[in-house]
C-alpha cells in the first residue's frame, strides 16, 4: 500500500529567518537518499507554505502520513535525517522534538478565516489554491450575481476595514458603485507601515490569490476594470510572490479580458511604495501612485468620488480583501456569526514583545485581552509582570494590565483610548518605561510627518521636545498638562489621520501611567530603569571582587580601583551607558 506523505515546512517571514530554506533542502536531500521521494513522487511533495503562526518555534514542520498530522518545532537541517529515518520510514515520531501542549493552546482559541489557507496552500502554485476551492467564489459572482448582490452580501456580513479605521466595506463599495464615472479604480493598500505589524505581509506571502480574488470581486461590485496593489518595497518576498500569483492568474484568465467568458474585464498592476508611513493614508497613497510626494489632501472630496487621477477609487486593506472570497464562499450569515454586535468576523494580530508565544494570530472579534495574552500567548516571557499591551502602533495606545478583561473590538478599544488599528499587538512588561514608549512613537510620527500641515509638522516636534526633556531629567512642573493641551490641539486640527492619531500614545500613557510621568518629572527617576540619563550607576562594595572587567568596558574612564579591591565610579565622568552593568558577572554594579 502506498503511504500518502506530505511535508510542510514553514516558509513565512519567521520560518525563512530561522532557516526554513535549509530545512526544506535537507528534507529533499534525505527523502531522496532514503528513496522515499523517488518512490512516492506523485503523492509526496515538499510544499513551500505561508505563515503557520507560531513563529517563536520556527522552523515548524508538519509531517502528514495518511492524513495523520505530526508537528515538529525548532527544526534544524541536521535534525531532518532522524525525522526521515525514524518517523517517515520507521513510522515512529521523534518524541522529543514534537511541538508541546502550548502549541495546542496557541491554536485552541483561534478562529482562522483569512489565515485558514495560509500554511495549507502553496503560495507559488495557483493549482494548490484552486484545489482548496479558490476562484470558485469569483466564478460564481461573475457568472450568476449582479453587483448589488455582492454589495448586499458584504454589507450583511458586517465586514469593516481591517486597515485600522474600521469603515464598513460594503458601504464603501456601495458609495463607489453610485459614483458616476466610466473609469473607476480599486486599490489594495499593502503599505503596511506600522512598526510591529506584519499581518498583511504574511497574508500576501502565504496566500496571495485570496487578495487577488478579493480585488476581482470588489472591482466587479463597484464597476472597475483596473486595480493596483500598493505594496512596500521593504517586503521583497511578498512582492515576488504577488508577481508570481498575478502571472498565474493571468495565465488562467482569472485576470484580463472577459473573465469566465463574461463581459467583465479586470487588470491588476503592482506599484511599489518607496518608504513613507504617511502613504498608508488614502489620499497620500493616491498621490504616491501618481508619482508625486505622498502628501495627503483635505477630504472631502473622498476617494470614492474623486480619487486616483480624479476618478472614483476604492482603497481596501489586504486583510479586508482576503476576507471577501471566504465570505462569498461560506455566506454572510456564517461570517457575521463570529464577533460582536458591531465588530463582526475575525481579526489578525501580530502578537509580539515580551510574550512567550510570539507570532501571527487570528481571533474572533470580542475576545478578551486576557485570553490573547495568557492562553494564546502563553503569558509573559521570563516570569516578569505584565505592564501594558500596546495596540494600533503609532496611532494607538496602551491598555494597562488592570484592564485585561477588555474585549478586543473597534468600540471597546476606542473607549479605552486605543484602537484596533492594523493589528500590531505589543506586550510590555515591568522593564518597559511608558514615557519612553510614548517618546518612541512620537519620534516615529514626527519623522514620518509629511510636513504639509502645521499642527502635525510643528506640534509633533514640540511634543517630542517635551518628552525628550522629561526623559533627560529636565522635566518641569506643568509638563503633563502642557502635553495634554498640545496633544488635543494636534489631534483636533491636523489634516490627516497621521496627525489626528499621533498624540494617542502620549494621551493613553498619561491616562493610565500618570504617576510614571510624575516620577520622571518630579523625582528625576525612571522606575523601569530605561531612561538612561536618569540612572545613577555605582559599585556595591561588598559584592565587588575587583576583577577590573568593568574598568576595561568603561568607555569614558570613569571607573578606577586597584586589583582585587572594590572599584569606584566617578559620577562626573560616567556617561551612563550601562557597559559596566552589562559586563559585571557578580552583579556588583548598582543602577538606581
Amino acid at each position, binding site marked *: 500500500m502506498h503511504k500518502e506523505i506530505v511535508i510542510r515546512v514553514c516558509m513565512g517571514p519567521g520560518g525563512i*529567518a530561522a532557516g526554513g530554506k535549509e530545512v526544506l533542502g535537507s528534507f529533499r536531500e534525505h527523502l531522496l537518499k532514503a528513496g522515499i521521494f523517488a518512490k512516492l513522487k506523485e503523492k509526496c511533495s515538499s510544499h513551500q507554505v505561508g505563515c503557520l503562526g507560531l513563529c517563536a518555534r520556527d522552523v515548524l514542520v508538519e509531517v502528514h502520513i495518511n492524513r495523520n498530522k505530526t508537528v515538529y518545532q525548532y527544526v534544524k537541517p541536521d535534525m531532518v535525517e532522524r525525522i526521515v529515518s525514524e518517523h517517515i520510514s520507521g513510522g515512529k515520531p521523534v518524541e522529543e522534538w514534537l511541538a508541546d501542549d502550548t502549541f495546542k493552546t496557541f491554536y485552541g482559541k483561534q478562529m482562522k478565516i483569512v489565515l485558514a489557507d495560509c500554511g495549507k496552500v502553496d503560495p507559488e502554485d495557483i493549482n494548490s489554491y484552486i484545489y482548496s476551492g479558490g476562484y470558485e467564489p469569483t466564478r460564481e459572482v461573475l457568472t450568476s450575481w449582479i453587483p448589488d448582490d455582492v454589495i448586499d452580501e458584504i454589507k450583511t456580513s458586517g465586514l469593516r476595514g481591517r486597515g485600522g479605521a474600521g469603515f464598513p466595506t460594503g458601504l464603501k463599495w456601495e458609495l463607489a458603485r453610485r459614483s458616476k464615472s466610466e473609469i473607476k479604480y480599486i486599490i489594495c493598500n499593502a503599505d503596511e507601515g506600522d512598526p*510591529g505589524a506584519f499581518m498583511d*505581509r504574511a497574508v500576501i506571502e502565504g496566500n496571495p490569490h485570496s487578495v487577488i480574488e478579493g480585488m476581482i470581486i470588489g472591482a466587479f461590485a463597484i464597476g472597475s476594470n483596473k486595480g493596483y496593489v500598493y505594496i512596500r518595497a*521593504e517586503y521583497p518576498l511578498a512582492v515576488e510572490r504577488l508577481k508570481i500569483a498575478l502571472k498565474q492568474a493571468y495565465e488562467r484568465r482569472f485576470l484580463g479580458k472577459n473573465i469566465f467568458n463574461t463581459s467583465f474585464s479586470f487588470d491588476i498592476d503592482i506599484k*511599489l511604495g518607496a518608504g513613507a508611513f504617511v502613504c498608508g493614508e488614502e489620499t497620500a497613497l493616491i498621490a504616491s501612485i501618481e508619482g508625486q510626494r505622498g502628501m495627503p489632501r483635505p477630504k472631502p472630496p473622498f476617494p470614492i468620488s474623486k480619487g486616483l487621477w480624479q476618478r472614483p477609487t476604492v482603497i481596501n486593506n489586504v486583510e479586508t480583501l482576503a476576507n471577501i472570497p471566504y465570505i462569498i464562499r461560506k455566506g454572510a450569515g456564517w461570517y457575521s456569526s463570529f464577533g460582536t454586535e458591531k465588530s463582526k468576523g475575525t481579526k489578525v494580530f501580530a502578537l509580539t514583545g515580551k510574550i512567550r508565544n*510570539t507570532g501571527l494570530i487570528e481571533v474572533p472579534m470580542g475576545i478578551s485581552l486576557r485570553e490573547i495574552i495568557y492562553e494564546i500567548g502563553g503569558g509573559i516571557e521570563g516570569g516578569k509582570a505584565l505592564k501594558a499591551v500596546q495596540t494600533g502602533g503609532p496611532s494607538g495606545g496602551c491598555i494597562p494590565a488592570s484592564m485585561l478583561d477588555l474585549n478586543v473590538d473597534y468600540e471597546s478599544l476606542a473607549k479605552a483610548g486605543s484602537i484596533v488599528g492594523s493589528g500590531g499587538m505589543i506586550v510590555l512588561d515591568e522593564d518597559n518605561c511608558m514615557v519612553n514608549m510614548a517618546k518612541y512613537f512620537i519620534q516615529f510620527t514626527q519623522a514620518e510627518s509629511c510636513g504639509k500641515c502645521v499642527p502635525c509638522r510643528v506640534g509633533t516636534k514640540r511634543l517630542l521636545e517635551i518628552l525628550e526633556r522629561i526623559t533627560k531629567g529636565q522635566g518641569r512642573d506643568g509638563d503633563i498638562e502642557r502635553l495634554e493641551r498640545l496633544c488635543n490641539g494636534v489631534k483636533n486640527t491636523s489634516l490627516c489621520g497621521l496627525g489626528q492619531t499621533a498624540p494617542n500614545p502620549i494621551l493613553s500613557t498619561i491616562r493610565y501611567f500618570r504617576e510614571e510621568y510624575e516620577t520622571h518629572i518630579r523625582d528625576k527617576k525612571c522606575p523601569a530603569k530605561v531612561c538612561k540619563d536618569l540612572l545613577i550607576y555605582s559599585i556595591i562594595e561588598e559584592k565587588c571582587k575587583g576583577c577590573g572587567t568593568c574598568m576595561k568596558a568603561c568607555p569614558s574612564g570613569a571607573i578606577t580601583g586597584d586589583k582585587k579591591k572594590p572599584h569606584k565610579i566617578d559620577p562626573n565622568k560616567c556617561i551612563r551607558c550601562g557597559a559596566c552593568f552589562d559586563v559585571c558577572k557578580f552583579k556588583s554594579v548598582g543602577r538606581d
Partner: protein
Amino acid sequence: MNDILLNIIEKYRKKNGNIIFLLQETQEALGYIPKQAIDLFSEELNIAPSRIYGVATFYSQFRLKPTGKNIIVACCGTACHVKGAEKIINGLRKGLELAEDEDTTPDGEFTLEEIACLGTCSFAPVVLVNSAVYGKANINALLKKIGSKRKKSA
C-alpha cells in the same frame, strides 16, 4: 552611466511612468541617485530638478549618496525597540566607528541603515547583514561577524 540612464528614460516614456518609477529604476541600477541622473532627467523630460529632488527626498527608500560594500540594516520597529534595538544600533555605530551624521564608513565598506519595521517581530531585535537575517541579535556576535567581513576584504 549615461547609457543606463537614457535606457531608463526610454522605459519611462513607454510606460507613461512617474518620477517614483524613474528614481526606483535608477537606484536599482546604480545603487543610489547621483546628481548627474537628476540633471539628465530634468533636461530630457523637461521636469524641474526641484520636483525630482522633492520626490527623492520625500521617500526614505531613495539615497543620494552611494552605499558601502556591505549593507547592515537595523530594525527599529516597536517589537525590536522594546527588546533593546537602541543598544544594538549604538553598539553598531560605535563598532563601525561611524561619524555622528554619517551612515557609511569612511573606507566605504559598511553602510548602516535604520528601518521602521522589517515585519519579523518574533525574532526581535532583528538585524540584516547583506540581506541575511540575524534574529534575536546580540551586539557582540554581530560585531564579530562584521569584523570578519572587514578582514576578508582587507
